[in-house]
């Protein structure tokens, strides 16, 4: 079996390194930038943002709070204060517009760990993976919401690697790195995309939040696809691509509508044919006529043949 070149290699040659890594670079800037803003206070004494991802206050005026954590608190019997409610509203509206799982790929610190796992996995050529259902995360999400109802305590936040990692980096990590190491190894050796793609209830929550989100990746030029499979290779939720990219024959629009798409834009980067672009969920309507025409064209072509 021929060794497949690293996904994205072809894109680098056709589009140049910068364009073939544009969204990845922007994403890393976002992740490190957010972390940096929070660290500026404790490390340099410049207090732009206080708190952490659970709840923060920017420049003493802008509160932001995590809806999943706040929901757990409410289920445990808390009546949040005005700032928390304003903060959670802003966050909910934001992610409902730009895509819930944008949190996962543009903010979450664990994404850095699991992306690295993916990279190592690819380098080691590990193909085997435990069969873990992609829906397990929704069950776990249910558990995180039932536990505070039963115990009256925000149980999940004692274990949540997402909040623990970010809080750890800003306030002191303790032994939380062990959990991150566990996720790193789990994703390499046990299950491909095991944490973010199958287990993480935080991601599951944000995917539900972005169920009808506006900003979407669109396989606008899908007829140009040459089946190099690079997008499937890099996508952390590869199942979301197929209908949009290959659904032309079934009359499925080119917009990736699954709320599990994290809008990471890596597929846009690695595609040497520039099939993908960021668009809106309504791009289907705009492209509808073309789609039908092109499929008709395909039909007539096959008829002629």
């Amino acid at each position, binding site marked *: 079996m021929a060794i497949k070149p690293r996904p994205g290699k072809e894109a680098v040659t056709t589009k140049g390194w910068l364009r073939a890594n544009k969204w990845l670079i922007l994403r890393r800037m976002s992740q490190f930038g957010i972390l940096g803003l929070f660290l500026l*206070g404790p490390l340099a004494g410049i*207090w732009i943002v*206080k*708190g*952490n991802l*659970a*709840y*923060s*206050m920017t420049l003493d005026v802008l*509160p932001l*709070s*995590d809806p999943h*954590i*706040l929901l*757990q*608190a409410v289920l*445990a*019997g*808390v*009546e*949040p*204060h005005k*700032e*928390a409610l304003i*903060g959670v509203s802003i966050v909910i509206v934001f992610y409902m517009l730009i895509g819930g799982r944008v949190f996962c790929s543009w903010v979450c610190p664990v994404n850095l760990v699991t992306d690295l796992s993916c990279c190592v996995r690819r380098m080691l050529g590990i193909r085997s993976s435990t069969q873990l*259902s992609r*829906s*397990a995360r929704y*069950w*776990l999400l*249910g*558990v995180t919401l*039932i*536990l*505070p109802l*039963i*115990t*009256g*305590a*925000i*149980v*999940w*936040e*004692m*274990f949540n690697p997402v*909040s*623990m990692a970010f*809080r*750890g980096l*800003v*306030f*002191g*990590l*303790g*032994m*939380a790195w*062990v*959990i991150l190491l566990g996720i790193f190894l789990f994703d390499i050796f046990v299950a491909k995309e095991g944490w973010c793609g199958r287990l993480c209830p935080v991601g599951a929550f944000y995917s539900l939040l972005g169920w009808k989100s506006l900003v979407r990746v669109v396989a606008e030029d899908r007829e140009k696809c040459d089946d190099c499979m690079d997008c499937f290779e890099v996508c952390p939720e590869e199942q979301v691509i197929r209908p949009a990219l290959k659904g032309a024959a079934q009359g499925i629009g080119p917009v990736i509508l699954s709320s599990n798409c994290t809008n990471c834009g890596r597929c846009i980067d690695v595609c040497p044919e520039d099939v993908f672009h960021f668009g809106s969920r309504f791009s289907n309507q705009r492209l509808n006529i073309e789609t039908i025409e092109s499929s008709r064209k395909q039909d007539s072509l096959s008829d002629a043949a």
Partner: protein
Amino acid sequence: MVNRRQFIGNVLRTACGVGLMGLGLGMYSRQASSLPAMAIRPPGALPEAEFLGACIRCGMCVRDCPYDILKLGQLGSDDVVPGTPYFTARSGPCEMCEDIPCIPACPTNALDHALTDINQARMGLAVVVDQESCIAFLGLRCEVCFNICPIRGEAITLDYQHNTRSGKHALFIPVVHSDACTGCGLCEKACILDEAAIKVFPMHLAKGELGGHYRLGWEEKEKAGGALVTPDATHQYNLPEGVRYDLQGKGLILDGSGSAELPISSNPLDSLNNNPLDSLNRGREGQ
């Protein structure tokens, strides 16, 4: 494609796995959520069980503490529930800011916004835990805890006691009063011993509680305005005829003529001066 059997099997498998995981998380969290005795919550913190349901671990109180005494619990390093705020009195006690900035910083009322007077805070309770090493009990002058206390003269008072070792000096014993002590821990920080003899403990460890069925006689008497039970019968002394005894009064009282022969000497010193055997034998003389 999956058939119905496979689908149900998959769902059951996932549900089972996740259910077990949830059970594990729940059980472990119960066990792990006990607060170590030396970790004190910030002022206004709800009772521990409620606090763990309200604190979203944002660390805003930590950031707004001007004395930087608050820390967030870290996994595996301090046994405090990860992400929840606490301070350690011995290294950094609460300085009891008048405006209590940590409380308004809290977005979920885990630190109760109803607390506006820091003197009403009950973070814990100071306890003189070691009377064997506290130097006040050794008869040495110290009173550092008494002097540093922000609610001076109310939360800690000095109780003067007789120094039985020297026989002529006083002991200045620090006594903590739970109706005034906020549990700030300044006394624990200030204690001059290598290991503090006065320590702040969470309230449930520091306080005893009298059974609800107890009625204190003297309080009930005061409330009722008089004794609620039959007054004690006057004690009857078994004394020879013509002699009475007044306890807490004149002592022995002789009725009738003074010439009457006393069975015992009216001078207590006689019993010391005389051979006790004589007085014992006196009754036998006639026999």
